[in-house]
């Protein structure tokens, strides 16, 4: 733990101290995160991950400010938060952006206008397809994690008839589009596809339709609450199909809603699983997080921690932040980050699975750049 704090804390502290000494002024890193609204849970993870990195690094000489702005899971509020953050002195050179894809899409033109680096952990694929040079995504995009999810289903579970249940939000749409591409590429068929509103609580109809479709596996792209509702109701209805979910299902807060028996055989894609990973540095991060926030860390918290730590490193160069991040290769806790030229910094994914004995999953499969090595099984032979 001491080594962990020393290593990352010292690294960040030295970066900030040098920066402050060079600039002779305060530095501000506004945290634009959804503390309220539909994505408040993920937003809190983001905020807490950032705060941990900032608090471990903070030195009096650095005079670093990191105000938190609630974006309310709403693009309009996110834009207002950005304008407030940019209007306060000293003008920030970087901001942490909200996790929801719609809010991030609304902020991209503003970041371009103000030449401010926007750190992101949103998975929405489109964010890095618009040619914006100021976005840096430290969570693998849907193009990466959905490739891992689809490959695990087809290559490891050997399932070929998939039922896809997704949220009728930007997050759900983006994920299901990527899943469709990957299932087709891997030679699997989508036997059933249906969307679910966040407000729908009773999913017995959807589960009955999945059963009737003849699917032999379920792929979920749902937010936390809907994921838990589907898994719990499927278990009670005796669906008896393997379920491989989106990253929401790896979150400790999602698992806490379900009985261990309901989670048996359920897997999820994610960038990391800090609560389950035995890597000593990640385990140290998890301990520090639990101690500070009395909660289990998830992949969003760790990705944000890594993003802020990476920002500290690039600040040392004295170059514009966006320029530095675009060229940097940064060893983080979850993975090594490097831009692909579009701002995608994270390219690895893992699959975690629950064994039915507890609520902490084990890492079942690690994928490095899964989207770059997914030839159809026939081609591979």
């Amino acid at each position, binding site marked *: 733990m001491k080594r962990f704090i020393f290593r990352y804390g010292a690294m960040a502290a030295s970066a900030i101290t040098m920066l402050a000494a060079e600039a002779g002024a305060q530095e501000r890193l506004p945290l634009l995160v959804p*503390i*309220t*609204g*539909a994505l*408040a*849970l993920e*937003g*809190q993870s983001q905020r807490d991950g950032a705060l941990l990195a900032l608090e471990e690094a903070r030195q009096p000489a650095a005079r670093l400010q990191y105000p938190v702005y609630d974006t309310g899971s709403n693009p309009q509020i996110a834009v207002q938060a950005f304008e407030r953050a940019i209007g306060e002195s000293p003008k920030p050179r970087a901001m942490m952006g909200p996790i929801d894809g719609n809010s991030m899409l609304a902020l991209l033109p503003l970041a371009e206008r103000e030449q401010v680096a926007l750190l992101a952990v949103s998975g929405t694929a489109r964010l890095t397809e618009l040619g914006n040079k100021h976005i840096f995504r430290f969570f693998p995009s849907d193009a990466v994690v959905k490739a891992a999810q689809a490959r695990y289903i087809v290559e490891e579970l050997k399932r070929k008839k998939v039922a896809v249940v997704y949220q*009728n939000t930007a997050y759900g749409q983006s994920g299901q589009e990527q899943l469709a591409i990957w299932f087709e590429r891997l030679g699997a068929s989508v036997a059933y596809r*249906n*969307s*679910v*509103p966040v*407000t*729908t*609580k*009773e*999913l*017995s*109809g*959807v*589960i*009955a*339709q999945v*059963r009737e479709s003849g699917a032999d596996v379920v792929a979920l792209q749902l937010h*936390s*609450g809907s994921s*838990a*509702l589907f898994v719990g109701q499927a278990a*009670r*209805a*005796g669906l008896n199909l393997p379920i491989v979910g989106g990253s929401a299902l790896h979150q400790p*807060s*999602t698992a*806490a*809603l379900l009985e261990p028996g309901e989670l048996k055989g359920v897997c999820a894609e994610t960038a990391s699983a800090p609560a389950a990973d035995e890597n000593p540095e990640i385990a140290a991060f998890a301990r520090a997080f639990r101690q500070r926030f009395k*909660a289990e860390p998830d992949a969003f918290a760790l990705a944000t921690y890594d993003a802020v730590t990476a920002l500290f490193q690039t600040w040392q160069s004295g170059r514009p932040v966006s320029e530095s991040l675009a060229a940097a290769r940064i060893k983080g806790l979850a993975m090594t980050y490097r831009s692909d030229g579009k701002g995608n910094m994270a390219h690895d994914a893992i699959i975690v699975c629950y064994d039915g004995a507890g609520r902490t999953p084990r890492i079942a499969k690690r994928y490095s750049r899964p989207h770059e090595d997914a030839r159809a099984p026939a081609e591979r032979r």
Partner: protein
Amino acid sequence: MSWAQIAIDGLALGAAYALVALGFVLILNAAGAVNFAQGDLVMAGGFAAIVFVGLLPLDGIAVPGLVLAPLVALAGGGAGWLIAEVAYRPLRHRPPVAVFISTIAVGIMLQHGANGIFGAAERRTPPLVAGEALEIAGLTVSPQTLAIVAAAALVILLLHQLLERTQLGRRLRAAAQDAEMARALGIPVRRLTALAFALGAGLAALAGLLLANVYFVTPTAGLAFMLKAYIAVTIGGWGSLRGAVIGAFLVAMFEVVAGRLYSASLADALLYVALLVALLLRPAGLFGEAAGRRA
């Protein structure tokens, strides 16, 4: 999954919706305006149950929801009384829009309060009765489903007895029908209005305890329940307690059947189409007032 199974799921959902809708109508009748915080009181009931689990000195013993139910209902009742005194009474002579704005404000305060205290994560309350799912004639029925239906039926029956068979109930109905006349007859209208708020909020909180075990609770969960209650009351007829209960079961059944036949997204949209059709065909609802306008 058979249609009988779908009907059982719809019955449990309808029972919980009925409690929310009943509370909604009680307050509507007493105050003459819509309580837009009703959904957030459902949410608050779920979180109140979580607080009581932490407060009860039962180390290591799972607290059954049956123990929590009276505590949650009482806490909800207290909140309702407070809303009546703070958000309704000072505005009761203003246009009805003032009351519904103030209840919206109460709802938002409850949401942000819950978010600040409990965080944004979904939480789950204990089941009323714990136990494995039962297999009955090929149907899977969880004890919680049975308990929700039984608890809601009992509460609805008790409420009916209170309103129809007791002096207090007659006074409550008199105050709701014509407050000026009731006041002239010496009925304490102010206290009875506060009591109606307390009863309505208590029912909402109890529904929150029942629903949060199956569907979880978050600070923002109230809006969906508010909308469902509003639709149930509109279909059942404004001001009608019987209509609220039947409307709630119709909404729940529509939700699960349309979700089974089509998709959950389409079922959501179709519910509002059905509401529009119901309003066109029967503007006063199934058991509503022949005339009259409400805020």
